[in-house]
């Protein structure tokens, strides 16, 4: 600001001096002409006016030139540094400036400084854009870094990638990323869907994923990691998308080992259960009709209880799988009538020993459904078992299967027992949630409904509940007809349909099971 003030003063002083001199000359000349040359005052006045006019014009021109000097110098400097679109200029000689020398010198210094910063930035981007394989940072980054072009072909992979997945960068470069890297994601938020979306809707996008699994062939251990992706439309075509991997193999596989512990425990529980069920059956076979009916009834209750425990063991296993993203469903075309009747038959003993009849109504001509037999069996098992538990003294449970107006196959399980209070309905499908009111009277873990909900969702269906306290509850769920799912399968060029309950979903449609 000081320099600006200084320039203003310089210009004011200069103009004042020039005007003073000019006025002095004109007035002096007029006085001289009138007194010593005896020229008519009119002519003197006219000549004076003419001289004043000419000198004013000269003054204006000189003054503007002078005041423009600093501006011109700055302009020259800018063009000298960045001649873009203009012919390059020599730098100005600030020593020659009459006005604003300090201002210009100072500004010049600042412009040069800015320019050098800009140049450094430009230079660094130029290196990155040119060839990453020569970039020290990219090559020596201790994180696996992969760069792709606009057609998702790998253009660069650093040394860390090669070490991490055991495939040399030279083998990866030039390959489609989905063909080169067999990645699995915990849910349908995959790299593939993100990138597609980013390309369509965003100029730039950053996204990250947890628990990504890389299935590496040839005996190299499976890798588990978090992944970060960066997409920028304005990057050169060669490096439109960048991905960085953050290894968590050790930590995540410890969770896998927890699963193995559960699997082992399940095995240890199942073996005695197999035996219990086997020996109880021998008794039932051999003693039917020969023993006191009450003893036979006890035997059946024992059998039902062992069966219930078997189901619970399955629940533990499935919850562990879901929590660890390891539940994988294989959806096949199945006849819902036969699945539903076999599940009901399986549970009829449990209902019978509690004095309950399962009443099944199945609409004729249901379309074939796309289900994973084992998982959907668990859903029915849990829902019917729940209805049995909460039936109270009510002797009937109604099971109904029909087609909805949307063409979905809907199954409802209706009991006429305790019902559920409205305020607890929203929490019903939460893991370990149990209605406090019933906690003391009715055994359970709060896993069943959570499992049922998760598994139905994984099938692409919806599980709902309607309940009134003291008059009973209805649980219902929908399933997609296989015809709808097979459309999906055709789209994916796939024979079986693999779905997760947030289970593993293969990253790309090119993946075949």
């Amino acid at each position, binding site marked *: 600001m000081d320099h600006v003030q200084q320039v203003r003063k310089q210009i004011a002083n200069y103009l004042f001096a020039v005007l003073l001199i000019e006025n002095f000359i004109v007035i002096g000349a007029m006085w001289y002409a009138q007194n010593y040359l005896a020229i008519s005052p009119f002519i003197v006045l006219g000549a004076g006016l003419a001289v004043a006019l000419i000198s004013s014009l000269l003054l204006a021109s000189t003054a503007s030139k002078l005041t423009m000097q600093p501006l011109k110098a700055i302009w020259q400097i800018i063009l000298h540094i960045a001649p873009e679109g203009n012919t390059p200029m020599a730098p100005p000689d600030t020593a020659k400036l009459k006005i604003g020398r300090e201002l210009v010198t100072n500004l010049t210094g600042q412009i040069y400084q800015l320019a050098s910063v800009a140049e450094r930035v430009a230079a660094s981007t130029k290196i990155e854009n040119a060839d990453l394989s020569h970039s020290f940072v990219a090559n020596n980054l201790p994180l696996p870094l992969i760069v792709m072009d606009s057609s998702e072909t790998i253009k660069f992979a650093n040394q860390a990638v090669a070490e991490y997945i055991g495939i040399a960068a030279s083998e990866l470069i030039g390959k489609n990323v989905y063909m080169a890297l067999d990645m699995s994601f915990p849910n349908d938020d995959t790299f593939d869907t993100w990138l597609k979306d980013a390309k369509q809707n965003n100029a730039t996008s950053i996204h990250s994923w947890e628990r990504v699994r890389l299935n590496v062939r040839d005996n190299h251990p499976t890798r588990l990691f978090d992944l970060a992706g960066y997409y920028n439309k304005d990057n050169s075509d060669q490096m439109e998308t960048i991905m960085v991997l953050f290894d968590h193999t050790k930590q995540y596989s410890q969770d896998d080992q927890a699963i193995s512990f559960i*699997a*082992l425990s*399940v*095995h240890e529980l*199942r*073996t005695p*259960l*197999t*035996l219990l*069920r*086997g*020996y109880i*059956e*021998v008794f039932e*076979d051999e003693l039917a009709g020969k023993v006191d009916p009450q003893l036979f009834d006890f035997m059946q209750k024992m059998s039902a209880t062992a069966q219930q425990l*078997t189901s619970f*063991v399955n629940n533990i*296993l499935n919850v562990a799988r879901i929590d660890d993203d*390891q539940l*994988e469903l294989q959806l096949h075309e199945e006849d819902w009538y*036969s*699945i539903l009747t*076999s*599940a009901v*038959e*399986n549970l009829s003993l449990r209902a019978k020993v509690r004095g309950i009849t399962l009443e099944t109504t199945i609409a004729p001509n249901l379309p074939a459904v796309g289900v994973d*037999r*084992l998982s959907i*069996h668990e859903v029915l098992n849990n829902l019917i078992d729940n209805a049995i538990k909460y039936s109270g003294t009510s002797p009937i449970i109604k099971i109904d299967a029909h087609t909805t107006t949307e063409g979905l196959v809907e199954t409802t399980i209706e009991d006429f027992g305790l019902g559920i209070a409205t305020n607890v309905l929203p929490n019903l499908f939460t893991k370990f949630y149990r209605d406090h009111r019933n906690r003391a009277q009715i055994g359970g873990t709060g896993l069943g409904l959570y499992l049922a909900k998760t598994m139905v969702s994984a099938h692409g269906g919806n599980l709902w509940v309607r309940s009134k306290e003291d008059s009973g509850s209805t649980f219902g769920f929908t399933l997609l007809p296989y015809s709808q799912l097979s459309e999906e399968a055709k789209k994916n060029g796939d024979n079986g349909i693999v779905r997760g309950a947030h289970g*593993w979903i293969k990253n790309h449609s090119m993946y075949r099971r």
Partner: protein
Amino acid sequence: MESDQTPDQTLTPHPTRKILCIEDEHFIAELYDRSLTKAGYDVDVMSDGLKALAAAQTDTYDIILLDLMVPNMTGIEILRALRDPNQTPSLRAKIIITTNLEQREDVRTDIEAQADGYLVKAEMTPHELADFVNTIE
């Protein structure tokens, strides 16, 4: 698979059908032996993996029930050996895996590709097992 099989009264097993039950848990083997014998099968029980493989390779069985956890050789090794034409030139038996152990997904896929059936023992009573075996062609 487990409880979906309803007893089918019209199917009667072939009287001479032979079953090899490879199972190291003696109580389970005892129950299966009893139930399958009652259903009309000729049952051999073996608990040692190596001996069981040798017996299976004689190709005298129609059905092999194979537990995955047996001593001296794992069930999966037995399965692979039975499916390897160099080790087992001919095998007419259907191989049914009987296990209570949950497999990792990749192992299960491998088993599914090589076995003719798979069942969780805890999910079936010996009776239901016999009904299941009856449905094998």
